[in-house]
Structures are given as structure tokens and as C-alpha cells.
């Protein structure tokens, strides 16, 4: 009796954490022809913060952003530990001192996937649920 109750609680808790995790699970995606297989979080961060223009192998990397929203906020929190307010200030400083240009923004995840499927060097991020065979998911080390 006691055991069954305990197991149910564990299952319920497990279910809740899973649904919470899948709610904001952002994945990094590239063109399926891109030879890259996995990346470190810092490597992804450097590309999206304009500090590196290359994939680890040396190929040209072009980052592409999603519009303002939960997926973008979760992505920058995950790779750069920066809030939307910090990201705004970060880019303003670089743009208006001529030191950098932010990733170009796609209008939504469908447009982003289209951009990636047409350009081998583009790297983006989408909600895990949006993944299809037009893009390749890059596991983060």
C-alpha cells in the first residue's frame, strides 16, 4: 500500500519534470550537409555573441536568431547565461560602436529552418518539437 503510493508520487514527479523540460527544450540546428557532429556550449555561444565566425572545424558559421519569445530567451539563458535585458544591452554596445552586428533574425522557426536548409553555414536554434528532416540537431557537449 505504502509502496504503491510512493511509486505514484515518483511517477507523478517524473511526469511533471519531463513536461517542464520539454516545454522549453531548445536544440541547436544546422544544415544536414554540415559535417559538424557535436559542439561545446561555449563554441555555440561565441558564434551567437559575434565572437567567432567559424565552426570548430574552421568552416564559416553564420548565426540566425528567432524573434523575441520564450525559445530565444531560453536559448541565450542556456548558452550565454544572459537574460533578454542583458542581450539587448550587449548588442546595443557592439552595434553602436561599430564592433559587431547581431545575428539576423528570421520571422519564425519555419523561416529559420528554410534559411538553414538553403545555406550550409547557417546555425540556428529551435524548440525540439519543431525539428524535422530539413535540419540536423547538434548535440551540445
Amino acid at each position: 500500500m505504502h509502496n504503491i503510493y510512493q511509486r505514484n508520487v515518483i511517477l507523478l514527479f517524473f511526469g511533471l519534470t519531463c513536461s517542464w523540460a520539454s516545454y522549453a527544450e531548445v536544440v541547436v540546428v544546422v544544415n544536414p550537409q554540415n559535417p559538424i557532429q557535436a559542439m561545446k556550449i561555449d563554441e555555440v555561444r561565441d558564434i551567437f555573441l559575434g565572437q567567432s565566425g567559424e565552426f570548430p572545424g574552421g568552416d564559416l558559421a553564420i548565426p540566425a536568431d528567432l524573434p523575441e519569445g520564450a525559445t530565444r530567451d531560453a536559448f541565450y539563458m542556456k548558452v550565454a547565461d544572459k537574460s533578454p535585458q542583458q542581450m539587448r544591452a550587449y548588442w546595443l554596445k557592439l552595434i553602436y560602436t561599430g564592433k559587431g552586428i547581431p545575428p539576423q533574425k528570421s520571422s519564425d522557426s519555419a523561416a529559420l529552418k528554410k534559411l538553414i536548409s538553403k545555406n550550409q553555414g547557417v546555425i540556428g536554434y529551435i524548440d525540439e518539437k519543431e525539428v524535422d528532416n530539413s535540419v540536423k540537431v547538434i548535440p551540445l557537449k
Partner: protein
Amino acid sequence: MRHKKLSKISALFILLGPLLQLNNVFADDLQQFRLSGFGTMGFVKTNTDDAEFVPSPDYSRGASTSPDWLIDSAIGAQATGDFSNNLSGTLQLISKRDLGHSYSPSTQWAFLAYRFNNHITARAGRLGSPYFMVSDYRNINAANPWVRPTIDVYGQVPFSYEDGVDLIIRSNVGKSRLTVQPFYGKSKNKLWWGAAVTAKINPLWGLNASLEQGPYTLRIGHAAGNLTIADHENLNLILDGLRNDLLTAFCSECSARADHFEVINKNVSFQDIGFQGDWPRMLIMAEYTRRLAPGFAPDTNAWYLTGAYRFGKISPYLTLSKVIQTSAKQDNTVPNLPIEEIQLLRDGINQTLSDVGQQTRGIGIRWDLTESLDFKTQLDHVSVANTSVGGYNVDVKPGFSGHYNALSVTLDFEF
């Protein structure tokens, strides 16, 4: 002459714009030319009519109990184009009130940048001067926690750009990123020093280095050059008085004193050490600075400390800042004789040398409304060291208590 040159540069950008846009089609929607803009709408009101608050030393009029809508207001536009993988150009125009109360756009940045590799970029043209931690983007208020950088610290070097060259050298040191930036050029600005004066630094050189790791940034900077302020009529009258033959007859040091006070081609230097801790929930910023200036221009030390806490889109903050004068506040070279001209000369010298110090305690709140719009309101309490000089305030009237409050409201936007 210069305006002609700059309008040629803008024409070039306008002509190249559509060409580069066209290029986009071939590059499958990847952009190579960008136009963007930013601005601030501001409002300042104080509780005194005995002095006027100004945001920087290039304003002759400021805010008092009658509100001022324009001292913090500015609008800017920037064009950036990639001409090749390595060569890019940036042009930034800003329109805000200047000393002559004109709002005609001035060129803040106009440079070509050449990227040699991932580590080294060279730039030439008009460049924002990096004297302070946030000085090269001091006009981009949305990038900063406050309504404006405090005049106590940022007022010490009232030059926002130089015409020259710089190098940006980036490298990784362990887990930190090191950026070193040497620069060389010349700079000029019209300032308010009781009267409009032209201040020039030529040549100007400097070096700064910043080390970033995670949320932390540590930055040190040094700048030096030759300063000239030649057109201040009252100061020139004092210098003429000191060099007058009748005076030098019984004051042998007076003429040498005039040479000392004069600001023509004399060494000026500035050092800054800054720290920033920038977390999703909190921001701490501090700078300590030292200015060594020649002649009548005072030596100063200044610092500020800012702390902000971020409750999501709402960030309350506190700032303390202070500037103190470290050079002599009076001079007794001229003998104290009961002759009116001599007394006037002594008064003039001591008035010019007197304490420019002041301190400010500020409390404010920033609200990020959207990703391109924020609202800030800040209440400052200003206390000046010498009420007859009135610190950085202008139009100081007799009887000024030296203490007042200033309320500022700004809206920063990008477009």
C-alpha cells in the same frame, strides 16, 4: 570642407545601399548592409532656480524648476556595410542639443574597419573615444542602467570622438577574453567654461585593456595628449594682467605664473580603472578615474558605484558618485596690494582655480517595456563643494545653497 567630405561619405552609403541590398538576393537572404537607429526622449526638472543642471560640460543652459525636455534627448542613425569579408564601413549621425542650441546632426562615427583575422581589426576615420568604460556608447542610453552616465565622472573628459586610427586586438587568456585597444588621433569640442571655449587635444593617444570572464569585466585605460584652450576671453585677460609690465616690475614670478596657467599645447592625461559584474539578476558597475590637466584646468579624481537588481523587466538601481579637485584651489603669487586692478586680478585667478568638486546620490528604476523600448526615472541629490563655483552646474546665482534634487525621466528606443 569637412562637411563636404562627410556628405560624400553619406552619399556613398546611400548609393551602395541598394547595391548591397541587391547582393542579398544572391546571398540567399543573408544581409550585408544595415541601417538602424536609436534615440532618447528625456525630461529633467530640479528644485532650485539658483543653478542649472547639465548632463555634460558642453551645455550652456540646463534644467531648473522649469523642466527641460531636451538636455537628455537625442536621436541617432547608423549605417553599416560589409564591402568584403574583411572590409566594413560604419557611419553614425547624432542629433542632440549642442552649445549653440542647434540640433543639426553631428558625425559621431565614420570609419572603415579592416579585419586582418579573428584577433586584429584596424579602424580609421572618426571613432568614438574609449576614455571611460561606457564612453564609446555613452549616447546609447538603453545600453546603460542609468538615465545618463554621471557628470561627476564622465564630465572630466568632455570629448566624445577622435579623428584618427585604432586597433582592436582580441585574444583568449585561459577562460578570459582580453581586448586591447590602442588609439591615436586628435579631438576637438566646444565646452562651456563660464563662456563658450574651444578645447582641442592634438595629438591624442591612448591605450585600454579589458578582461572579460563570464559576468565579470575589468578594464583599465590611459589617455594622454596636448590640450589647447586658447579662446577664453576672461582667462586671456587674467594672463595679460599677469604679464603686464607694471605688474612684473614688482612681481618677478607673475609672468612665469601666466605661462604656467596658460593652456596652450600642454600635457593632459587621464586614467581609468573600471569593474563590472553583470548577472541575469544583478548589475554592479564602478569606475575610479584620475585627470591631470594643465594650467587653469583643474586636476580631478572621480569615482562612481552603481548597483542594480533585476526583477525581470524592472530594475531598481542606486548610484553614488563624486569628483574632487586635487590641484591648488588658490594662488598667492600676485602680491596683496590695495590696488583695485590687482585685487581684481587676484580674485579672477582664485575664482578660476576654485574647487569644482561635487557629489551625487541617485536612486532610479528602469523598466524594459519591449526589446526595443525602455523607460527610466531617476532622482539625484547633488551637493557641490564650492557654492560660488557650483560644481558642474551652470548659471550659478549668488545665494545658491549647493544642494538640490533633480528628477529625470527618459524613454530609450531603437528603430
